[in-house]
């Protein structure tokens, strides 16, 4: 029922939204105004003495520092280190969660058997593992990986379990009576239903992975942008520190953007994406 009514309300919202800009400025101009106002505020705050310039340098100075960073090899090496930990951690977490999620999700017994353990382990914050990571791996990249994999694993696992639980019973029974093997059932029945959930899980995990990559670098000192931020802060290179922080923000925006595009591409056949323009 909701499936049928939703597109019409969405269409109505969309029609309203597309009518709106004709009244005023286009949306991107408004957004640009917002950015300019924000930067203006930032520029004025130290100039007017609201905060001391040595603690919050004006925007122009920070952006200049970021521009210099962009020309430095060391900066790109740090970005590379962060992204390497991000990518490896995310890949391990997704692979492990996908396999375990499918195995557990497809067996009602395993689902009940593991439920209490999963519900207990999932909310444990991965930063609690920081001391353990230091003890086991020191400042190597494995420290970052331990935190990233732990945090991302649960995000993806839960989504995969939801996805498998959402499989249509009739479709499953049909597949069974046509003599589909386990592998065939996974590939042709479970996987298509689960894919949107999996993509949501990966999208959430991608941003969590960045948070933990930076956290590990900041606190433990494994190589990457976070370590550079800690170094710049303790070395008193304040505008350099703000420049690196801006860089992590842009990295986050880029990751969000890319995962959204990938999600839309992968699910282009799915009704939830076909029905509307923006996912």
């Amino acid at each position, binding site marked *: *029922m*909701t499936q049928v009514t939703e597109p019409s*309300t969405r269409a*109505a*919202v969309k029609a*309203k939204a597309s009518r709106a800009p004709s009244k*005023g400025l286009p*949306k991107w101009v*408004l*957004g*640009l*105004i*917002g*950015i300019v*106002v*924000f930067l203006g505020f930032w520029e004025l705050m130290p100039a007017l003495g609201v*905060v001391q310039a040595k*603690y*919050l340098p004006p925007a122009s100075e920070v952006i200049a520092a970021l521009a210099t960073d962009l020309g430095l090899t060391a900066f790109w090496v740090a970005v590379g280190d962060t992204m390497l930990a991000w990518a490896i951690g995310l890949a391990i977490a997704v692979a492990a969660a996908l396999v375990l999620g499918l195995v557990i999700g497809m067996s009602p017994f395993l689902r*009940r*058997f*593991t*439920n*209490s*353990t999963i*519900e*207990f382990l*999932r*909310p*444990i*914050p991965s*930063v*609690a*593992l*920081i*001391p*353990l990571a*230091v*003890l*086991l791996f020191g400042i190597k990249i494995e420290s970052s990986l331990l935190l990233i994999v732990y945090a991302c694993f649960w995000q993806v696992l839960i989504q995969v379990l939801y996805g498998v639980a959402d499989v249509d019973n009739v479709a499953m029974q049909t597949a069974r009576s046509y003599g589909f093997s386990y592998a065939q059932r996974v590939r042709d029945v479970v996987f298509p239903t689960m894919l949107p959930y999996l993509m949501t899980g990966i999208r959430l995990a991608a*941003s969590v992975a*960045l*948070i933990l990559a*930076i*956290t590990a670098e*900041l*606190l433990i000192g494994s190589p990457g942008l*976070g370590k550079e931020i800690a170094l710049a*802060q303790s070395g008193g290179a*304040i505008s350099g*520190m*703000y420049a690196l*922080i801006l860089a*992590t*923000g*842009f990295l*986050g*925006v880029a*990751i*969000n953007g890319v995962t959204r595009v990938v999600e839309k591409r992968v699910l282009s056949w799915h009704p939830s994406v076909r029905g509307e323009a923006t996912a």
Partner: protein
Amino acid sequence: MKILKSFGFLLGLPLILLAWWWLATSGAPNFFVPTPAKLVTTFVETWFGERMLTDVLPSIMRLVIGVLAAIVLGIVLGLAVGLNRTLRAVTEPVFEFFRALPPPVLVPVLMLLVGINDGMKVAVIISGCIWPVLLNTIEGVRSIDPVQNETSRSYGITGFSRIRYQILPSATPTIMAGVRQALSIGLILMVISEMFASSSGLGFTIVQFQRSFAVPEMWSGIVVLGLIGVALSFIFQWVQRRVLRWYHGLKEVENAV
């Protein structure tokens, strides 16, 4: 029999894991992993005493204050921005940037701006937790069914009562999703702010144990953080069930049709 069976499902795997842990550690002592019995005695000795008052409770207080302030601020700001189409368009890119910014980088910034004190730790938690609540409130307000808006307009429901009885309830499911994210970010930031710059608190104590190679104490600290995480998630689920009871009921009715 049925109760026995569900108990078996509830405790079966945890008991197997515990037994495995006990067998693996009791044979050959491992420096990195204490035996279960050792961990329990260390846990009681370490945390049930003065430390509860000096480290654990202050940390939890800061977390609660920070998260609650972030939720209230996020919802109020979110309503203000979400109800105004121009404001929404103006603020969107800046807010998206702050949402994408990994919250832990705020710790060194606020250390500079506020100094190292309790206020800084609460400020870190607020400034990290507010974005998911704020952006989800904006999204929740934006995606309200237009028919609802027009109905309340034609019935002359405006101002505060419109927010209280129409807008807030319709946006609550989305807001709750943001609150859930804010809770886990808050816990992370509580620990990080104490690990980075502090001389007390849970995060500081655990790092201190690790640096002095007090391995069983360190593990007991990890257990404390885990328990706080589990407790938060239970409280959240309880609150969500109460706040969204009408919503789940509605979904059930819709799905049944």
